[in-house]
């Protein structure tokens, strides 16, 4: 048998943002279990969404547990805190969710692979979709923090129309009456928003109740399986962008969706799919190279010879995905709200920072 491979997963398992971490973990572990290898060990730790905790757990995993590969972080700020020092210490890091721009550009690293997306990707696709849908005057809003700014930057990068307004809201804001009034008065023909988690739910419900009925576009994060049920009818018909959906018709995906539902008794989410892909990428690389041979293992990761649930998948020079980003629409199936793909927003899309990466 090959030597033991130890994988350290740091993710958010307690507190408000735990849903995402739980999905990444469950998707990841599904793939590991399916592989049935007895030489891969996964250590899982809860970061409580605190960057300081994440850093300390990373230290411990690297120093004491001597993990070879790390993964699991959900949030950009935690990734920024952990990834650079982990990769500098020779550990491979595979991101199942966050893709901050710095790590894609100037600070890219040979041991860092992003298996989800660069943060801007879904927003760029939304911008491109807005052009296709002939939206000419968008009102855009996002929370006032780095990921929010990246989001609006990403949208504007592709979007060619005018801006009816641009608003940064408070992080964690729950009441959007004022913003909705601005939107109503702005003469916009559409709204683009990036409000992850509970913020998005609040916004959508309040927007639906306000009587403003301009078309809304957003990234998948506010329309993911985990929270769609909480938004309910307010989300119906809204277009959102994602690199994956459960109706993607590939054998790998069909099998994944069925297996996930069977094991966990719920529909898989975007995050679960990313966790699943991450694990499969690792497993595929382990099939061709031993992790102790870093160069060979890195090359095997780079080759990405695995069956991604999102279809075609390959890495760019900065180890970020080059992939299709789809446009989905929220629909109702029985009494379950879910998404269906209606178009491809961007094809084989790479990120805007790849050129800054000297690798």
């Amino acid at each position, binding site marked *: 048998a090959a030597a033991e491979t130890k994988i350290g997963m740091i993710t958010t398992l307690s507190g408000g943002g735990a849903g995402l971490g739980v999905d990444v973990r469950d998707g990841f572990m599904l793939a590991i279990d399916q592989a049935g290898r007895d030489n891969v060990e996964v250590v899982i*730790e809860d970061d409580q969404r605190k960057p*300081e905790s994440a850093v300390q757990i990373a230290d411990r995993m690297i120093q*004491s547990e001597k993990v070879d590969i790390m993964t699991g972080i959900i949030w950009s700020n935690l990734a*920024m805190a952990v990834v650079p*020092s982990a990769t500098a210490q020779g550990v491979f890091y595979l991101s199942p969710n966050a893709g901050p721009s710095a790590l894609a550009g100037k600070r890219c690293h040979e041991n860092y692979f992003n298996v989800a997306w660069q943060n801007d990707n879904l927003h760029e696709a939304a911008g491109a979709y807005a052009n296709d849908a002939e939206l000419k005057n968008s009102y855009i809003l996002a929370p006032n923090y*780095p990921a929010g700014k990246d989001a609006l930057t990403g949208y504007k990068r592709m979007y060619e129309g005018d801006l009816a307004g641009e608003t940064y809201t408070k992080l964690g804001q729950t009441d959007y009456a004022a913003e909705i009034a601005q939107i109503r008065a702005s003469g916009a023909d559409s709204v683009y928003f990036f409000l992850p988690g509970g913020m998005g739910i609040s916004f959508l419900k309040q927007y639906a109740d306000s009587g403003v009925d301009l078309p809304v576009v957003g990234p998948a994060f506010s329309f993911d399986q985990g929270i769609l049920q909480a938004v309910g009818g307010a989300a119906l018909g809204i277009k959102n962008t994602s690199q994956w959906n459960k109706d993607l018709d590939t054998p790998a995906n069909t099998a994944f969706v069925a297996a996930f539902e069977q094991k966990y008794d719920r529909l898989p989410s975007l995050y679960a799919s990313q966790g699943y892909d991450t694990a499969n990428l690792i497993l595929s690389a382990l099939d061709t190279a031993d992790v102790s041979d870093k160069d060979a293992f890195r090359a095997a990761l780079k080759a990405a010879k695995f069956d991604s649930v999102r279809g075609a998948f390959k890495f760019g020079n900065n180890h970020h995905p080059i992939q299709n980003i789809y446009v989905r629409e929220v629909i109702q199936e029985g009494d379950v709200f879910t998404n269906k793909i209606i178009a491809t927003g961007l094809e084989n899309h790479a990120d805007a920072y790849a050129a800054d990466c000297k690798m």
Partner: protein
Amino acid sequence: MGRERLLNAGVILLLLMVPLWAWSADEPFLITLATKVAILALAGVGLNIALGIGGLVSLGHAAFFGIGGYAMGILAAHAQNYEPLMQWPMLVEGTNQMPLIWLVATASSALAALVIGALSLRTSGVYFIMITLAFGQMLYYFAISWSAYGGEDGLSIWVRNEFPGLNTLVPLQFFLICYVILCLALWFSARLAHAPFGLALAAARQCEARVETVGITPYKLRLTAFVISGAITGLAGALFADLNRFVSPTMLSWHTSGEIMIFVIIGGVGRLFGPVIGAALFILLEHFLGGISDYWQIYLGGLLLMIVLYARGGIIGAISGREVAHD
């Protein structure tokens, strides 16, 4: 009060022995954990001066902790990319020398404490709690949107700063630095409690009118205590940032203030070693309960409840009697 002394001595020795053992047993993470205890205890020692002796319940000490952290982050970041911090009116360069960083961290958090304290101390009681919280939150939101230094993403310093003659990258050496600082702070706060200043400050906590009629201005006492307290907590912030080689707005959030306060309460308010025991216990619980289940915080909550309900005067109070020592 022999029992409390004995307990204190035991705790401070244990805090030293564990990392030494961990070093010989090659358990570097245990050293990191001990370092974290020492640093957070230091933050608590700072708060305890305002809270325990002066009765100033500050729910804004994260502000000083965070300012200390950012002082480290900003100086080190500039040292790393060789861009001066400012060029006008004079050239200020970044640095990666710990002593210098500590100086800046202490001074800037003391300055912040002076401003925040001067304003906040016009109120008292719950209003004081809330106004300090307000200042903390202002800084927090400021840091989140301060994109020059990372905003919510925070600021990473890839390597630990340097201390002349030591290799700070060796966990044990960095621990020893923190440990010595903690001991110094404990010593200072013990002296302070028994000094004229401590007596007057404690009197101002109990009866403001009494202090005034003997010709002492409580406001000045409190402000001084608040500044000292903020400075020590700021120093702890700089060390904490160095421990993680990373600083972010979470250091400024009210959760941090709350946690520092909780260390002090668990250990025993106004007890010299309260923050040390409190921080040690809290961190151990957090660390070891984390492995039990995803819902470990329920157990943490339950344990904390037991402590408040059944250990009056904190852990130290429960072990060595409720009365605070008079001598």
